[in-house]
C-alpha cells in the first residue's frame, strides 16, 4: 500500500480515508538506530549546522525510507519545512502543502482540510468514518494520560510514547489499538507510583532519549506532556474543523498557554521543564512562558538525538534539588 509521509501532526483522518499508510517522519527519524548518522547525512548534503536537528533528521529519513509523497506543514509549525519541501521536490518527492491558518477561523481550517481531501480524492463521509475510528483509539490514549496523572500508574516516558504515536498510529491503527489495550490492562493492575515531585513537560517532544528516566531516577515524574497530548487530540469536539481548531500546538503561544495553565492546576504540577530545540523559533517563546507560568521553570535545550549530556544532567539535578528545598 502507498505510504504518505508527513512532517508533524496533520489531519490523519484524510490519509486513512484515502486508504494510505500514514508515516510521521519525526517518529521514523527519532526511533532509527541511525538517527545521529541521518543528521550527518543531511549536513553532508548541505543543510546548515545551525538548522534544527528534526528538519535534518526528517530529510534523511524521507530519502532513506523512499517516501514518494509527503504532506508538509507550511504554516503553524516550522517555517524551515518550506525549504525542506523545496529541497525534497528536487529529489523527486511529491510534496503536499498543508497550513494551520494563524487566524484559527473555522472557514480557513475547513478550506485547508478540504484542499487535502481533494488531493487524496476523498469526501466527508469517508473522512468522518475514519474520524470515528481514530477517535475510539484516541479516547483510549486519553485514558493512558488519565492513568498517568490521576492514578499515578504510568511513567512519563510511557505517557510520552503512547501520545506521540497517535500522530500516525504507528502506521497501523488496528495494531496500535491492540497495543494500547494491552498496555492499559497492564497499567491498571500496577500499584501507584509514589514520587515526591510532579513535573510538566512543555514544548516540542524531546530529542533526548532518557529525559523521563533520568528525572524519575531522581524522584520526579512527568505527569503532563503538553505537545504529545495535543497530538492525541484530547478534546471532545463536534466535527473535524472544531477538532483541528481546538488543537493548540500549531497556533499562537497564548492559545497553547490557556491549555497549559489549566492542566498544570488540574494535575497538581510542582514545576515545569520547558524543552526548546536548538535553532527553533519556539526558543523565543520561552520569554513568554516564563512570564505567564506561575511555577518554577527549567529551560532545557537539545540539539541532536543523544542521551542527556553531563551539563544538562547537572542542571536537572540542581533544579530538582532546589524544588526539594
Amino acid at each position, binding site marked *: 500500500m502507498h505510504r504518505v509521509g508527513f512532517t508533524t501532526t496533520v489531519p490523519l483522518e484524510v490519509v486513512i480515508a484515502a486508504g494510505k499508510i500514514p508515516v510521521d517522519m519525526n517518529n521514523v527519524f527519532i526511533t532509527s538506530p541511525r538517527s545521529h548518522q541521518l543528521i550527518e547525512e543531511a549536513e553532508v548534503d548541505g543543510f546548515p549546522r545551525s538548522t534544527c536537528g528534526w528538519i535534518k533528521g526528517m530529510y534523511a529519513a524521507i530519502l532513506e525510507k523512499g517516501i514518494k509523497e509527503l504532506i508538509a506543514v507550511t504554516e503553524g509549525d516550522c517555517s524551515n519545512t518550506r525549504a525542506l519541501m523545496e529541497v525534497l521536490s528536487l529529489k523527486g518527492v511529491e510534496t503536499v502543502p498543508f497550513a494551520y491558518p494563524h487566524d484559527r477561523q473555522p472557514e480557513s481550517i475547513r478550506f485547508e482540510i478540504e484542499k487535502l481531501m481533494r488531493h487524496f480524492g476523498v469526501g466527508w463521509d469517508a473522512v468522518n468514518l475514519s474520524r470515528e475510528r481514530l477517535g475510539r483509539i484516541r479516547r483510549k490514549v486519553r485514558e493512558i494520560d488519565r492513568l498517568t496523572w490521576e492514578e499515578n500508574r504510568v511513567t512519563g516516558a510511557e505517557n510520552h510514547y503512547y501520545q506521540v504515536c497517535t500522530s500516525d498510529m504507528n502506521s497501523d491503527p488496528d495494531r496500535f489499538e491492540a497495543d494500547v489495550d494491552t498496555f492499559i490492562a497492564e497499567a491498571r493492575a500496577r500499584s501507584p507510583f509514589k514520587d515526591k515531585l510532579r513535573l510538566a513537560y512543555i514544548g516540542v517532544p524531546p530529542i533526548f532519549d532518557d529525559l523521563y528516566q533520568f528525572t524519575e531516577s531522581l524522584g520526579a515524574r512527568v505527569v503532563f506532556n503538553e505537545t504529545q497530548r495535543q497530538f492525541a487530540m484530547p478534546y471532545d469536539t463536534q466535527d473535524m474543523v472544531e477538532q483541528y481548531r481546538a488543537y493548540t500546538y500549531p497556533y499562537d503561544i497564548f492559545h497553547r498557554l490557556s491549555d497549559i495553565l489549566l492542566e498544570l492546576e488540574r494535575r497538581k504540577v510542582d514545576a515545569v521543564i520547558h524543552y526548546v530545540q*536548538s535553532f527553533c523559533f519556539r526558543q523565543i517563546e520561552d520569554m513568554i512562558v516564563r512570564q505567564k507560568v506561575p511555577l518554577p521553570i527549567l529551560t532545557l535545550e537539545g*540539539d541532536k538525538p543523544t542521551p542527556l549530556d*553531563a551539563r544538562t544532567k*547537572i542542571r536537572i*539535578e540542581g533544579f530538582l*534539588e*532546589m524544588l526539594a528545598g
Partner: protein
Amino acid sequence: MQIGIDLGSRKAKFALLDGERIVRLADHDTVTFYKRYGRLAGDELELDLAASGIFSADELAGAAVVVTGYGRNTLSLKGAKVISEIRAHVAGALLQTGLRDFTLLDMGGQDTKVALVRSGKLADFVMNDKCAASSGRYLENMAAILELSLDELSSHWENPVKLDATCGIFGESELIGQILRGHPVERLCAGVNQTLVTRVMPMLKRFASETIVLTGGVARNRGVVRLLEEKTGLAVIVPEHPQHNGAIGCAHMETGS
C-alpha cells in the same frame, strides 16, 4: 572537621573547615591532579586523597567529605557525599558573605552560573549551556593571544575596545584584527573583560537583586568587577576566597546549614 572538594574544569579546589572556621584551602590544576591521584574504577572516578598530601591522615580519617564539580555524574569518592554545584556555591556564598538576599554570579573555568538567593535559600538559577565563551578559559586564551599574564589582563577596564564575536575561538581572530589596528594594550584588555560582562548580562537581568556576589576564578579579575558594577549599577561583592567558594560550600553543607 569537614572537607569540601570542588572539581572544576580547570582547578580542583579543596577546603578544610572546623565548624564555620576555614582551616585550610588548597588547589591543584585539575588535569595534573587527575593524572597523579585519580583513576577510573569501572565507569567511576576514584581519587587518592591520602597520596595528594593536602590533608593529614588524621584529618582524612576524622572529617566528613563532600564533593561537587563537573565530574559529578562520573564521580565516586569513597565515603564522600556528592552534591550539585549550584547548592555548593550558594552554601559557600552564604557562609562567606553573611548575606541572605543576593544574586550569585559564579564564573569558573567553563561554567557560568547565576543563582537567585532569597532569605538564604536558592530561589532560581540559570547556567550557561552550549557555550563557555563567558568563562575563565576565554580569559586565559585571550591573555595568551595578547602575550600577557592574567593579572595584567585583569587590571584594565577603561575605554574598552569593542569585541563582537559570539564565539570564544573566533574572538581570538577578532582580537588579532584589533591588535593590527594599533589599539593600546590597555584598551584591548578592557575590551576582553567587557566581553565577559556583556555575555552574562541577560542572565543577570533575569535575576535582579540589589547585590551581586561574584565568585569563581574570574572574580579575581578586577577589570571584570569594575565593568560589572558600571554596567549593572549594583554593588558587586567578591568574598575573600572566590575561587574556593564551591569547596567551602561543600564543607559547610556538612554542618547542616
